[in-house]
């Protein structure tokens, strides 16, 4: 009897996962169709860039500066033991551009803008605003979902760039300003080790992928939220959790596919 219940439970769970994946696939197709086909919602897109990008500037820049300063401090103290403090620019630059910049920016943006996006759409579900749009023959996918998801995809590379730049500034300040490293050595180490196609290209590619994941998961979770207060809360929490995990797992695969060391 217990074995039968276990099999039934497993079956239900498997069906539930398949159903969720199917809904996600249909949602992705609908999102791509709404994004690629007219009408294009330029004004709403710009509003969402402001909401999700501009309003995330402070948190991203301050975090980038702090991470860069910590990297500068830790890197200098470690490298100086081996007499290799001249490599600080290289270490900090590669760490920020290849990994920390895109990943930490994605986690920060998901925590601020992704959760807000999911909560806003979920509360629109709860208050029947999406049904109101449907009853006016207006597709919510077109007017609500697409501008929000596209804006997240668009702002992620820009915010990642800012994070990296502020991180480098923080490391420069600690390494050169506080530890007395020669600024020329810091900058030349940075310039000589960073390859545009591999490092900067990979950084942008990762940021785009993470933006796509964040935009899609946040809007999907909000769109399919249960129309209750608990549903809004669940959509918000699951957006942060699922996207964070997806970013971290996706980071490995993107790194591998882009040609870095596996």
């Amino acid at each position, binding site marked *: 009897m217990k074995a039968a219940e276990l099999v039934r439970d497993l079956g239900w769970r498997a069906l539930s996962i398949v159903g969720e994946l199917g809904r996600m696939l249909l949602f992705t197709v609908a999102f791509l169709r709404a994004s690629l086909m007219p009408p294009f919602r330029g004004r709403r897109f710009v509003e969402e860039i402001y909401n999700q990008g501009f309003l995330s500037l402070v948190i991203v820049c301050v975090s980038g500066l702090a991470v860069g300063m910590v990297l500068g401090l830790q890197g200098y103290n470690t490298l100086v033991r081996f007499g290799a403090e001249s490599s600080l620019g290289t270490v900090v630059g590669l760490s920020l551009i290849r990994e920390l910049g895109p990943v930490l920016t994605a986690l920060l943006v998901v925590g601020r803008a992704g959760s807000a996006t999911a909560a806003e759409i979920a509360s629109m579900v709860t208050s029947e605003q999406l049904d109101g749009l449907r009853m006016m023959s*207006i597709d919510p996918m077109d007017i609500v979902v697409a501008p929000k998801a596209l804006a997240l995809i668009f702002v992620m590379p820009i915010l990642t760039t800012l994070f990296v730049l502020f991180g480098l500034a923080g490391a420069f300040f600690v390494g050169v300003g506080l530890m007395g490293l020669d600024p020329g050595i810091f900058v030349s180490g940075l310039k000589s080790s960073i390859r545009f196609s591999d490092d900067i290209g990979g950084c942008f590619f990762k940021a785009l992928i993470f933006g796509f994941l964040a935009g899609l998961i946040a809007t999907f979770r909000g769109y399919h939220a249960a129309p209750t207060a608990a549903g809004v809360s669940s959509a918000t929490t699951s957006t942060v959790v699922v996207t964070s995990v997806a970013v971290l797992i996706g980071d490995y695969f993107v790194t591998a596919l882009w040609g870095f060391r596996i």
Partner: protein
Amino acid sequence: MEASPAHDAHVRFDHVRMGFGERAVFQDLTCEFPRGRITILLGGSGSGKSTLLRLLGGLIQPEAGRIYVGDDEVTGASEAALYRIRSKIGMLFQGGALLDSLTIFDNLALPLREHTDLAPDAVASAIHAQLEAVGLTNVDHLLPGQLSGGMLRRAALARAILREPEILLCDEPFSGLDPSSVKRIELLLAKINHERGITVLVVSHHIASTLRLADHALLLLPGRSVEGKPAELQRSEDAEVADFFDEDHSVDDASLTPTESFLP
């Protein structure tokens, strides 16, 4: 009286079955709503009154049966066909369903900008005419959150009738409103129906008000439905129907003092 066909039916439900999970809402619902009349949908909580409106708008699909708006079938219609059918329907949601992030003006302008080529001046004058029709002025620049419950409901009503629908669906239009706001919405619905000939379907728990307003009533009971004129339903000898109206629904609660309402 039971399942009696209404003349010149504008909306028809034909053997509709609907449920959520294991809970059956309608097992075999067949009913009609007359064109150009006000119909009130009655029933206890969970009887499926709001579900009926959502089925009619194509927001959800039944498990079985067919639903018609005029000659158009809602059930099984493609998204494009549903959008065409919905252009004939205006819906007043319980909470208004106006977009929080847009001003009242932009909320009302949205369907016009989406579906018409009207010039901005024409859009503005159409919006002001509708707002005036529902007794709202100087609210253009306000957000929905800045309006009172009654004003919000009237603004949502203005949006629902903006595109001159043939059918107006009202989900609990009086809930949470003070008596004067209830009266105001009631008069507006009567006026809209009278002047524009719109078929109006009202879901409400405010029985006294809606019975005054309605020409036709549909009472949803467990496993069946009963329809007829409101006064006929009130006088019905059917035990379940009588029970429904006996549960103080037929008493005009606005006319009672709090003490009187608790007297045996």
